[in-house]
């Protein structure tokens, strides 16, 4: 019932990540946006900031809830989705597309392999 695309990996805390080999993109899952409800505010790090796998890197808030965002991998922030500052509802409307949050240059390629596969994540949300 919730969309879990096969082209990416997931965290237990409901972040997703894709990689093109050079950089990784990060966002939150369809399940997560539905649980939160209407997203009204996203706080993200700045370009150039270093983030560490497993640590908080930001906050997503809906009308009813506040939720920390956790980094799937370590790396340097190379892009931030500034569209979310004026249109946080993109996280609800298109969590795997226009609702992306960060782009990182990962410091290691190994961490990507430790994340949940779509099948593993699907089991967790059922």
């Amino acid at each position, binding site marked *: 019932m919730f969309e879990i695309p096969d082209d990416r990996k997931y965290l237990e805390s409901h972040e997703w990540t894709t990689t093109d080999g050079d950089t990784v993109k990060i966002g939150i899952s369809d399940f997560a946006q539905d649980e939160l*409800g*209407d997203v*009204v*505010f996203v*706080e993200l790090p700045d370009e150039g900031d270093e983030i560490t796998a497993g640590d908080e890197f930001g906050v997503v*808030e809906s*009308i*009813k809830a*506040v939720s920390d965002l956790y980094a799937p991998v370590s790396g340097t922030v190379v892009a931030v989705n500034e569209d979310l500052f004026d249109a946080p509802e993109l996280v609800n409307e298109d969590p795997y597309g226009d609702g992306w949050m960060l782009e990182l240059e990962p410091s290691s390629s190994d961490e990507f392999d430790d994340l949940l596969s779509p099948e593993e994540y699907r089991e967790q949300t059922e």
Partner: protein
Amino acid sequence: MGLRKPPLYDVHADAGAQFTEFGGWDMPVEYDSIRAEHAAVRESVGIFDVSHMSEIEVSGPDGTALMQRLTTNDVTVLEPGDSQYSAIVDDDGIIIDDTVVYRLPDRGDPVYLFIPNAGHDEEMYDRWTSFRDEWDLDATVEDVTEDWAMFAVQGPDALETVSATTDESVGDLSKFEAQYADVAGVECWVARTGYTGEDGFEVLCPWDDAETVWSALDATPCGLGSRDTLRMEMGFLLSGQDFDPEDEPRTPYEAGISFVVKLDTEFVGRDALEQQHDAGVDETFVGLTLLDRGVPRHGYDIATEDGDVIGTVTSGTMSPTLSEPIGLGYVPVEYADDGTELTVLARGREKRAEIVTPPFIDN
């Protein structure tokens, strides 16, 4: 102990509601979208199941005396079919709960039905019966919380919605007036009251007939999430959050509801409140908006521009109507003027804020 459930729990679940615990009850928090439900109430009409609200009935020869001595407002001004907002305070004038007191049609003596907040029914029943016994009053007190389901039909089209289900001219009711009316053939207590800032009605119907009445009232189902954002836009207090005898002890004067305190009546807490009335309050309830991006939330500190913590946010949200972050809370009176610039500490980050006297929206 399990959570208490409203009579229409299964109806709400089938409609896709998400639930939340509130006051010991498992209640719908949102059906589809808080934003959409909020908009329905501001622009057309929404219906809330608020059967978690408590109901206590007070009757008998000394019923009026008992009500007068345990609430801060003056119940003697109520005629049958009137109601009033009121506070229940302790000896120190601290608000235990806020309530609406309805005067029902007389049964020989005056009869009152008052509506404490969710989960306060047992506490209020105990309070009323123990003071009745202590003062040796001849009054009957009944906890009828689970005799009554309660629905709030709110919004500019609420009159149309309720009128379509009854032959009574409920449009003749003024704000805070109420009457018995058959709604979808079920005798209900229909009151022109609410908690949203919009026109509307609160309909009390027998618990077992809840589904008949609910399904007859044609309005967007709304959960407690939008009920909260709607009341915050108006600056209305939420019991247990904007005041709480343990965590946020406040008097009616501090909480901005001095109009419910009638010092020319005798009630528990009167002397403490008279003292505060004469001396003035140190801290007062205010509204604020954030000038930076963010959302004020319950428990966040309020600080001066120099960083001195001077108060606390008790409620906050992103206003769905304004798309602006709004908050309610307490600050010292010298910081309470409109336009005063302060900061809110949101999870360690300073957000610039400005005092705005609620309501935040023009209604």
